[in-house]
C-alpha cells in the first residue's frame, strides 16, 4: 500500500519481493537451523549488493537517502518469507540511525566504506531500551578516547559484524552514552550465538568488554536522546516487519485451506475456517492502512509523527501475534512442523514484538508522553 503511487518505491517493492521469493523462501527451513546449521552468508552478501543496507544512509555516505517508507517496503517483503534477514536490516538501520542522530557521520563514513558486508554491519542491542536497564557497561576516559568494561546481554549481530554500538555509562554521570567498538582486536569476548525463540539467522550474543577501546558517539550522556529519536522513526519499520510476517502467514494458510480436504471438502468451505481467514485478511488490510499512514507521517514529519510511528508498531505487532497463532491453527498438525514456515512466523512475530524494548512498557510510555 505504501508503494502504490511512488515509482521508486514500486521498484524497490518489486526487487525486494523477488529477492525474498527467490533467495529466502527456498532455504527458509535450512537458514532457520542456525546456530546448528550454517549461516546464510551468501544471501546476506546478495542483499548487500542490492543496497538493502543503504536505504536510510544519506547520499554523502553513498546511501539511498530514503526514509521509513522505503525501509518499510523492504522489510515488509523480506519478512513475508524470512524475518531473519529483515531483523539484520532493521538492527543495522537502527544502529546507523542512532549514529546519524548523534551526528557521528565521520565514524559512520569509515564503516560504510567497507567492502565486505561483515565489516559494514554494526551490531546493536536492538531488543532493549538501555534507559530501562540498570546495569550497563562502564566507560572510562583514556587519552583521546574511552575504554569500555563490562557485560552486555543480547548484542544483536554481535558475532558477525565488525563493529558494535554500545550503550554505556561514564562513571559519575547521569544517563548513558553510545560508544563504537571495533570487535576485531580489542579485548572483546563474544559468546556463542544465544539460542532464541525466533529470528534465528539474525543472531545475538552476550558480549564482554575488558578495557576495550571505544569511540564516543555524539555527546556524553545523550544516549537516551539518540535512542528515543531513532526509536520514534524505526518503530514504523518494526511495524512493517510485523505486517510482513502477517502476510506470509496468511498467504500460506489461504493456499493451504484450498488444498486440504477434511469432511469431504476443502477446509476453506468450513465457515469457521472462512471466519479465521477473514479475520486474518482484515487484520492485514488494517495493518497496511495504519502502516501507510505512519510512514508517511514520519517521512513528512507531520505533527505528532512520533506517536503515529509508535502506535503503529504496538498495534500491528500485537495483531501479528494473534494472527500467526491462527496461521498455524489453519494448517493443523503440519502448521506445527517446519515444512510450511508457519511455526517460524509464529515465533518471529512474538520475537518482533520485543523490538526496541518491553512492549507493555512502551504502552505505558506512550500515555506518559501524552500526559506531558
Amino acid at each position, binding site marked *: 500500500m505504501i508503494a502504490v503511487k511512488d515509482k521508486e518505491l514500486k521498484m524497490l517493492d518489486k526487487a525486494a519481493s523477488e529477492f525474498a521469493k527467490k533467495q529466502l523462501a527456498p532455504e527458509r527451513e535450512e537458514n532457520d537451523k542456525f546456530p546448528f546449521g550454517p549461516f546464510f552468508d551468501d544471501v546476506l552478501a546478495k542483499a548487500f549488493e542490492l543496497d538493502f543496507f543503504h536505504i536510510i544512509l544519506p547520499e554523502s555516505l553513498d546511501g539511498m537517502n530514503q526514509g521509513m517508507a522505503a525501509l518499510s517496503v523492504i522489510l515488509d517483503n523480506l519478512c513475508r518469507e524470512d524475518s531473519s534477514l529483515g531483523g539484520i536490516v532493521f538492527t543495522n538501520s537502527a544502529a546507523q540511525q542512532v549514529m546519524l542522530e548523534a551526528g557521528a557521520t565521520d565514524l559512520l563514513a569509515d564503516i560504510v566504506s567497507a567492502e565486505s558486508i561483515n565489516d559494514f554491519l554494526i551490531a546493536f542491542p536492538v531488543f532493549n531500551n538501555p534507559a530501562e536497564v540498570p546495569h550497563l557497561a562502564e566507560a572510562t576516559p583514556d587519552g583521546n578516547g574511552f575504554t569500555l568494561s563490562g557485560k552486555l546481554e543480547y548484542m544483536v549481530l554481535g558475532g558477525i559484524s565488525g563493529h558494535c554500538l554500545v550503550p554505556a555509562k561514564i562513571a559519575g554521570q547521569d544517563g548513558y552514552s553510545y560508544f563504537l567498538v571495533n570487535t576485531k582486536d580489542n579485548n572483546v569476548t563474544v559468546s556463542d550465538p544465544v539460542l532464541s525463540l525466533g529470528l534465528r539467522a539474525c543472531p545475538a550474543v552476550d558480549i564482554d568488554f575488558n578495557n576495550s577501546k571505544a569511540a564516543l558517539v555524539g555527546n556524553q550522556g545523550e544516549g537516551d536522546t539518540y535512542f528515543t529519536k531513532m526509536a520514534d522513526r524505526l518503530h514504523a519499520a518494526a511495524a512493517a516487519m510485523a505486517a510482513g510476517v502477517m502476510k506470509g502467514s496468511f498467504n500460506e494458510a489461504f493456499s493451504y485451506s484450498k488444498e486440504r480436504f477434511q469432511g469431504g471438502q476443502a477446509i476453506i468451505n468450513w465457515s469457521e475456517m472462512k*471466519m479465521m481467514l477473514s479475520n486474518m485478511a482484515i487484520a492485514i488490510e488494517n495493518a497496511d492502512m495504519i502502516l501507510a499512514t505512519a510512514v508517511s507521517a514520519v517521512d513528512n514529519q507531520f505533527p505528532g509523527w512520533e506517536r503515529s510511528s509508535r502506535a503503529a508498531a504496538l498495534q500491528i505487532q500485537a495483531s501479528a501475534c494473534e494472527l500467526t497463532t491462527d496461521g498455524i491453527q489453519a494448517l493443523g498438525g503440519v502448521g506445527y512442523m517446519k515444512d510450511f514456515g508457519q511455526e517460524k512466523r509464529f515465533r518471529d512475530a512474538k520475537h518482533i514484538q520485543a523490538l526496541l524494548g518491553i512492549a507493555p512498557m512502551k504502552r505505558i510510555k506512550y500515555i506518559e508522553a501524552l500526559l506531558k
Partner: protein
Amino acid sequence: MIKRSEVKEWMAHEPAFDDIMCSLRSAPRIPRTMISETRKVVAMARKFNNEVVRPYTLELDRTIQQDPEFLPWEFVKQANQRGFYSLVIPKIVGGKGYNFPAMSHFLEEVGTECLAMSNLIGVHYLGATTLLATWNMKLINEIIRQTAEGEKTNDPSLITLAITEPAAGTDVEEVSLLDKANITFNARREQGGYVLNGTKVFISNGHLSKWHVVIGYEDQSRPSETMLVVVVKTGTKGFSFGRKERKMGQKGCPASELIFKECFVPDEHVVFDSRHSAKLKRPPRETGRQIIEYVVSVSRAAVGAWGVGAARGALENAMQFAMETHVDGKLLINHEWVQCRLAEMYKTMALARLAYMENNYANGLDGAFKILQLKPLYYLMKILPASMIDKFITPTLGLPFTTWLFRKLQMDWQKDEQIHRTTGWGSLAKVSGTDAGIRNCQMALEIMGQAGLRHDRRVEKILRDSKLLQIYEGTNQLNRLNIFESFLASHHSRIKVYEHE
C-alpha cells in the same frame, strides 16, 4: 518412592497444594445431602424465574427508564413471601437453613433472567454476611431474626451494607489503601454509643432496606486501626435517604445515598469496635482486614455467580436467536462459526461457574462456612425441630460466651494462609465471572446483529446490567491485585503491593 515427611514438604512448595485443590479436599467433608439441597434450591429458582422474574424483567427495566424514582416494592414482597430472604440463614437464627453455597447457584439462576432482581435478593445477604463476619452472635440473632419474622408477617426486613463513600470506593475495600483514603464519614464516641456524621453512596437496596450495616471509623486519620461496624435502622433520628443513582443498568435495584447527621447509635447496636478487637489475637488493623476479607470472600462468590448468570443469559438468548433465524438459506445455528462461538460462550460460562464453586469450597474448608458445614453440626441442624432449637439453642446466642467462642474459632484460629486462600479465590471467582458476563454479551451481540440492539431481545439489557459487576465489590483491577497479593506475593517479602511513589 517418597517418604511421608517428603510429601508434606513438597506440598508446601508453590503453588501450595491446599491452594489449588479445594474441591477434592472438600469431598470427604461435604455432607451427603448438600447435592440434593442444591438441586432443590436450583429448582426453586427456576420456578421463580418462570412465574415471576422472566415475565417482569423487561417491564421493570422499562418502568425505571420512564420513572427513575420507582421502587420495586412489589417484587421485594413476592421474594419475601417465598422466603428467599431467609433461605440460607441458619435455623438457629430463625432461617430456613439451606446451605450457604446453594445461594450462589440460586443467584446465578435468577441472574440469567434479571440481574437487577437477583440483586434485590442477593444484596440482602451482603448485609447479613457482614454481620456474620463480626461473629457477634447476639446481634446476628437479633437483626437476622427480624428478616425471618418479616417473612411471616409479609413485611420485608432487608439488610444492606453501607461502606462506600463519595470519595472512597476501592480504598474502603482494601485495608492497605484505607489509610491513604479520603474518608469523610465520621463516628464520634460519646456516652453510651457513637454519633455518625457523613454520607454513604451507591448503597444497593438502600431505599428498600430496614437495617443498614454501617462501616465507620473512629479516627479518620487512622481508619485502618479504628474501623467499627454498627447497625442503623431506617427511621432512626438523624438518618435519611438521599438521591437514588441513575444507573446504566441493574435499574431495578436502587443504588442509594444514605445521609447521617448527628445520628446516634446506642452501644447495643454496635456490632464491632475497638473494645471488641482488643480481645482478639490480631492487632486492630489486621482484625479489620480479616472482617473485610470474610465479607468479600463470600460476597465476591455471589458477584461471580451473577457474572455467570449474565454469561448464561447472553448465551441462551443468542442461541434462541440463532435457532429461529435463517441466514444464507440455513438456520444460523447450523453455521459452524456460530456453533464455535456458542461453544466458546458455554466454555467461558462453565469455567466461571467452577471458579465460584471452588470459592465456596474454600469458604467451607477455611472460611465463613466452616462451622456451619461441619458434618455433626450440619446434621444436627437438619434434624432438630425448630421448637427444640428455639428452646435450647437460641437463648445461648445472647450470652457473651457464645460470641467469645465463635470469635475464638473463626477469627483467632483462622490462619493467615486461610485468609489468603479464601479471599484470593473470592477475587478469582469475581473476576472470572464478571469478565465472562461481559465477554458473552459482546459475543452474543455480534451474532445477533440488529436484533441484539433491541430492548425486547433482552441482550442489550444484560450487557448494561452486567457491566456493573466488573465495578462493584472492588473493581476487577483491584481484585486482580488481590489475586496477586493472595496467591503470588504472600510468600515473598520483596514484593510490595499497592505501592506508589
